[in-house]
Each structure stands twice: as C-alpha cells, then as structure tokens.
C-alpha cells in the first residue's frame, strides 16, 4: 500500500476495485466503513454484488476482465471535464501529453458494451473520482489475476497520477496483500527478479554485492518465475527443472491447472517440502520436514502497509517440528554451504537481512519490538515511512503509461458460454489447511458451492442445492449450486478453498506476460445438470 491503513478512514472518495474486502481483509474494511459513516462516498467496481458493493453509493458491476476499458473511460471523463490536477502533473509526472491524447478516444459509450455497465454510471464514477479530495484506490487479486494484470495496475496508477492522489493523506494506490507475509517474502528477496530489499538481480552492482556477501558468483540476470519453473519440470536438456524445495505452499491446489501442477511436481527427481501438514503437495515429495506454526515461531512479518512486526512463540511445537529457517540452514550445511553456519536464531537471520537491505537498514531485531516501523527505514533513528511518494517519487517522476484494452485469454463462446470467476470467502482461508482444522469454522461454512443467478438457473433447468457439472477447456468438476443474485446473469462464482471442489482443475487459461500471474479471475465454462 502506498498509504498506511489508518489513512483508510480519511478518503473523500473511496474506489475499491477487484477487492472483496469485507471477506478477504475484514479488519481493513472496518476502516472504510468508518470513513463512510463520516460521509465519504464510495464507488465499487466488481462483477459481484459483494457486501462492500452493497454499501457503495455506486456499484459498477463490470464484466469480469473489463477493468482496463472502465479505467480508460474514467480517465477520458476526468480529462474531458478538466479535473486533471495540472499542478501535480506538471511538477511530478512524465508522459501526460501522450496519455491524455490517448484517452481522448475512449468514451464511456465505447466502454459501456465492453464492461456491460451503463455509460452514465462510468461518467458518474469518473466525476466523483476526479473531484474527490482525496480519492483513494484499493485493489486485490481481482485486478492482478488477469492476463492484463500489469495493465490494470498501471491504469489505476494513471488515474491516481492525473488526479494528484499520490503522497497525500487518505489517498494513494493501495494493493491489499492476501497473505500474512507475502509482502515480507518479497522484501526478503524470495523472487526471481530481486535480491533482498528489491535490489534488481539484473544490475551487476547488486549481483556483485550479493556474490560477495554470499561468497559465490550469482547470476547477474533474473531467474525464471515459479510458473515457468513448473512448466519446465522434468524437461530434458537445458532449462529443465529437476529438483525443488517448497516451503509452506500447497502448490497443486492453489495454482491454476491442477493436473499440470501434479504432472510437473511428479516429474521431479527430487522434491523436498517443508510444511505443517502432509498437504496434497507434500504427498508428492521425497522428503517432508515438519515446520513450526503460528504461536510456536519467533520471527518477523511485514503487513500490507509495509509494517514490520514481530511474531512470538507462545507454546512449544508438536513433536520435533522446527522453524523453517533452521531446516533450510541444515540442508544447506549438509551440502557443504558454509553461509548458514552463523545462523543460531531467528534474530541472526533477520539482522543479516537488515544488513543487506537498504529499506531495512535502520531496523534490527530489537528495534522492531513494538511494530512501529513501516519501511523504508533507511538508517537507524529514521521514523519509517507510513506514506510513500510524499513530495517526490523515489525514481524521479511518475510515468503515465499508454494502455489499450484487450480481451481475456479466453472469452465465452458457444461451447463455454458462462464466465466463471473465483475468490475467497470470509470463513475459509486458501486451501483450508488451517481454517479447515479449526473447531467451529464448519458451523459457518462446511462446503463450497457455485453461486448462480436465479435467471440463469431457470434457463439451464437447475435448482438450488442440485449438483452440476462445470467444465472448461482444461477439465471439469461437480459442484453444488446455490442460487443468489450476487453475480449477474451469465457469471458464476466459487472459491478455491475446498479440496472437494478443485476449481483450479478449470482455471489457467492464460498468464500476464510480465508477471506470469495466472488469469484465475476469468475462465469461460459450460454448466450442465448432472
């Protein structure tokens, strides 16, 4: 998030898009509810009528995957109506001329049939956003899990830049991270493009720095993504992946195209998994190590607002379970790698991270005791940075990007005439390895179902509670139907949480070319009574 969570109580205009926040980030959503109670206006863009959408002054119930068209048309209206923050644009951005010329062609009337919402609604949303002082954008995977995920994010940046909503209290572009430490895993450099602290692998300066720090020559080019690695599993010749170490991820259930994942991991010569449970993924491994869990582990995690906080062990782990860092260190040491010899505690590991990462340079294990710092914290004594981009952008000027709309990887046709979109539910987390093993949760949600609009159900001859067969170009599953008008006719929804309804058998139609994030939010399907 560019802005701190506390800022969520202060926008004038709230614009959540592709985020089911009351279910996926409920505590953050309480702050928006407070802002609304104080008089803030809210425009929600979402294909489903979520609880957040019900609270909105305007719900843009867009067709799945049409976000770029909507955002182009909003930019068009903002430019046409003279709502561009000229001062901000002149002082802090670049590329505005080309961008403003580009959006001239994309009227709400153009976007309306693509987004399947009335032009007047797009016009209204744009006027409100353009006039908001400030206007704040919130998004989640409904923006990124598309083949045009990067385009979606950059379109949102364009909106924030043209209206001067960056670096201001209550504004900003705010991605809500879905996992407790997914921000932190990126901070730590567990990505193929960056060393710890987002220092790019492709720049020799940083490859040298880490080669020296780790006592071995490290490639000065980025590695391949997990998606590419899974594609290359077992492949003969150069580029083939033959061994993997997976920590705490149930890859075969969470990733798109389940069969592909199972084949990929099954073709490895050596698979080692570290986890709390013998997950579907761990079952494919040659060696499985028992890890310590929440309440058993000392460590650090970073939340969606870049706040660095301490985890503390309250109880001993079961049996011989060990912290992940210890397990990984021990494997390395047995391979003759001496770089882990000095790790004796979580403190040692975290302090090494701080010593190598400029955004953590002012932190160490003791300083984060109270969780008061949001990175970047460039040196000791620095108060941290709750709000990014105040006064200036780190990289100079905010760049407008010229972006065009394109269809999802697969669109509905005669064979697969229904849009499937996927997500989470409040009471279940991911593949339920944890919520599914917690007493009482089943009382609230004991099975997965497919949300179908009553009009569709009537046309398809199916009734509430019946099972249907849902098929995509990759496979089919059986799932129970629940009638609701939450999704519009022609669009159905389910979560990926229940192993009995492995929706990722169906998904995986395409990937964003830049991030290789899968288009999990759009999948044309066919639905048949069983």
């Amino acid at each position, binding site marked *: 998030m560019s802005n701190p969570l506390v800022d969520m109580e202060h926008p004038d205009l709230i614009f959540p898009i592709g985020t089911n926040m009351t279910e996926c980030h409920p505590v953050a959503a309480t702050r928006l509810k407070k802002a609304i109670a104080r008089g803030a206006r809210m425009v929600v863009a979402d294909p489903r009528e979520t609880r957040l959408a019900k609270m909105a002054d305007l719900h843009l119930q867009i067709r799945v995957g049409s976000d770029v068209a909507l955002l182009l048309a909003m930019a068009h209206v903002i430019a046409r109506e003279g709502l561009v923050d000229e001062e901000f644009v002149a002082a802090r951005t670049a590329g505005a001329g080309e961008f403003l010329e580009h959006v001239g062609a994309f009227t709400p009337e153009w976007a309306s049939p693509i987004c399947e919402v009335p032009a007047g609604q797009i016009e209204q949303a744009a006027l409100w956003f353009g006039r908001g002082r400030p206007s704040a954008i919130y998004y989640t995977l409904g923006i990124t899990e598309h083949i045009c995920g990067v385009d979606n994010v950059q379109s949102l940046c364009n909106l924030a830049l043209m209206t001067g909503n960056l670096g201001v209290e209550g504004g900003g572009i705010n991605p809500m991270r879905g996992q407790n430490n997914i921000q932190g895993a990126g901070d730590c450099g567990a990505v193929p493009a960056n060393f710890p602290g987002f220092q790019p692998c492709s720049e020799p300066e940083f490859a040298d720095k880490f080669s020296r720090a780790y006592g071995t020559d490290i490639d000065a080019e980025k590695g391949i993504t997990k998606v590419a690695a899974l594609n290359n599993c077992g492949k003969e010749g150069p580029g*083939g992946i033959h061994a993997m170490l997976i920590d705490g991820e149930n890859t075969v259930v969470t990733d798109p195209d389940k069969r592909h994942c199972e084949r990929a991991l099954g073709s490895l010569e050596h698979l080692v998994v570290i986890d709390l449970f013998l997950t579907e993924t761990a079952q494919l491994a040659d060696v499985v190590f*028992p890890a310590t869990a929440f309440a058993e582990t000392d460590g650090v995690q970073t939340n969606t607002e870049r706040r660095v*906080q301490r985890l503390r062990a309250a109880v001993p782990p079961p049996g011989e379970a060990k912290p992940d860092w210890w397990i990984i260190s021990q494997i390395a040491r047995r391979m003759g790698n001496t770089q882990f010899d000095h790790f004796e505690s979580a403190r040692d590991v975290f302090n090494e991270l701080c010593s190598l990462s400029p955004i953590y340079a002012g932190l160490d294990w003791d300083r984060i005791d109270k969780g008061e710092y949001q990175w970047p914290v460039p040196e000791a004594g620095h108060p941290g940075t709750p709000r990014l981009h105040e006064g200036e952008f780190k990289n100079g000027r905010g760049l407008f990007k010229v972006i065009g709309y394109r269809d999802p990887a697969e669109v509905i046709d005669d064979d697969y005439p229904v849009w499937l979109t996927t997500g989470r539910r409040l009471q279940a987390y991911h593949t339920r390895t944890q919520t599914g093993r917690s007493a009482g949760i089943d009382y609230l949600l004991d099975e997965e179902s497919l949300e179908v609009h009553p009009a569709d159900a009537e046309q398809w001859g199916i009734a509430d509670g019946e099972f249907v067969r849902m098929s995509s170009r990759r496979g089919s599953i059986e799932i129970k139907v629940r009638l609701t008008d939450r999704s519009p006719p022609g669009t159905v929804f389910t979560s990926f949480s229940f192993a009995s309804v492995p929706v990722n058998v169906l998904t995986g139609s395409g990937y964003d070319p830049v991030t290789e994030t899968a288009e999990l939010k759009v999948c044309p399907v066919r639905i048949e009574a069983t």
Partner: protein
Amino acid sequence: MIALKDAPSDARICTMTIDGELVEFREGETIYEVAERCRREVPTLCYDPRLEAFGACRLCVVEVEGINNPVASCTTRAGEGMVVKTRTGAVEKHRKTLLEMVASENRTLDIDPLAGYASQELGDLLERYEVGPGRFRGRRSGTSNTDDKNPFILRDYDNCISCYRCVRVCAEQEGDHAINVMGRGFDTQITAEFGNDLRDSQCTFCGQCVQTCPTGALSDKKALRGSDLPGEIEKTRSVCPYCGVGCAVDILSKGDRVVGIHPAMDGPANEGALCVKGQYAFDFVHHPDRLTKPLVKGADGSFREVEWDEALQRAADGFRAAHEKHGRHAIYGIASGRAPHEAAYSMQKFIRSSFGTNYVDTCSRS
C-alpha cells in the same frame, strides 16, 4: 503541572484542575480523557475508548465546581479553568450504590478471565469498591439465549448490564449492525434481528462484542474450553497468521496449549479489531494432523518417519545429485507467503548461495 506530551501543533492547549493538580489538555477532550491521562482511575462500565462515549453507566461521575449535580465525565468536555474532583465522598458513595444495583441483576459475578478481554471489569470494580449484590438482590434483567448453538459466542444475557458496548462495537467499530436492544427496564434484551441465531444475522463472528463485554454476558466459547486446564493464563504478543492486514494479537496459553486469542487493543494495524479467522481459527496449531517427525518416501512410494539426520542428508544429497547431473539451473526454490521473514530470507539465500542462480519465487503469482 501535568503537561501534555506530543500535542499536535494545531491543537489549542488549555488548563484545568483535577483533584487539586493543574493539568494541560487539548480543546475537545472530555473530562474522562484528561483524568485518565492523569491516572485518576475513574471507574467505568459502559466506556470503550474506541467507541463514542455513551454516558449510560454513570460510574464515571465527577464533581465540577459551579455545577450542582455530579456530571458524567465521559460525555462532558473539559473546559478552560474547570475545577474537577474525581474522588469525593459523595461520588464514591454514588458509585458504590450504582455498582450494588448493577451486581444485583446478574446471576454470577465470578467470571473466568478466558471469557473475554474486558470480562473482569465488573468483577474488578466490585472488588475495588467492596460491594456485592446485597441490598438490591431481586429481579434480574436479560434472559440468556441458550438456543443459539454457534460455537464461538456464548450469549449469557443473565449477566447483561445493558451497557450496550456489544451493540455499539458492532455498529461503530465493525459497521455490521448485527445486534440491537429490544425492550426496556427489566425486559431489556440484546438480540439479533427477529431474535435469530447470530449465524442468520449480519453477524460475521468477529468476536468484538465478546471482547468488549465487561461482565462475561458475552463469552468466548472456544477459550472457555480451556477453563479446566491447569496453570495460569499467559499472554504472548504476536501477529495473526491469515491475511496481509497484520492484526496484532495476544495469544492466550495455558502450559503447552493455545487456549484463545485476544485482539491487541494497541495493535497498530488493527487497533483492537479482529475477524472470525484471527479470533477463532487457531486450533490448527494443535491439530493431530500436524507433522511431528521428518518423513522420507521409500521405493514403494510410502512415507516413513525418520530421524532428522537421515532426512536432512537425503534432502541435501538429492539437491547435490540434481546439481551434478543437470547443472545449477535445474534446482528451484519456492518460499512461503505464510512463513516469517527468516524462512523466505533463508530460502532465497539457499538458492543463491548454493547454486548462484536467482531461481526462487513465492506464491504471489497465484
């Protein structure tokens, strides 16, 4: 004089006298807020600092010079030059009588601290003022809802004192408006719409009503399962393991068991709020499915439990063999978005320092 610390520069600073001491305050603060900062320990029951002051319990009354009757300090703004007394004989007697009346309405005053974060508030005040239900014992208000079989929230309204903190936290803090007040006087009853079970209301089971209840009328059913476990309750500050908001929690444990979760009222990301997952979905920690020993797969495809030495050696040998046979770009590491920094840092260091590649990623692409 008690001076203000960290006052924002745009606030108007005033002074008043509390119990004979000159104190500074910001314009707009209530008498209660100023008195709290001066550690006057003014008693309250209907007060939760996160909610709008309500003025219902009247325990926080103080004497203000020039005003005939005692005033509720939680709803009265402090004024320049005001002279306030928080502990005169008259207000203390008034508080004692009020507490006696409140206590007389409840079935039980002995509440397990596992019931909720604020569950000891009434009991503590009764102890401090050395009162019980004595003189006013008789009719009680509120009827416990024993039909609601939800596994999280015990609705023991026999112990309700109509402070409405649950109703207000649900409305003001959560914006859910799942519960409200029905009836008046002895017939006052907290209820969900149409008397429904909470599951059939707007309730999301965030547990905020439980944690703000000062009497245990609303209790944490899951935590109370640990009532009979031996040992003291220990609190450990940590962070919720679910989404990316990073809500600070206090893990409640007895011996080797996690028995419950309290939201951290001073948690910077959540300021006392939690959701159903963070509040109640913690017992995976002690689930019998947890792995307790390293496993190694045999030639027949089945796992057997082995000692750490054997498993670590097998893991290391496998990576070394793949490295030798296929080169350093044949090995890949996937870090967790759920494990702490030390796990992710070690994973990327393992790949980079062992093989000199950047073949590492997280689960952020799916």
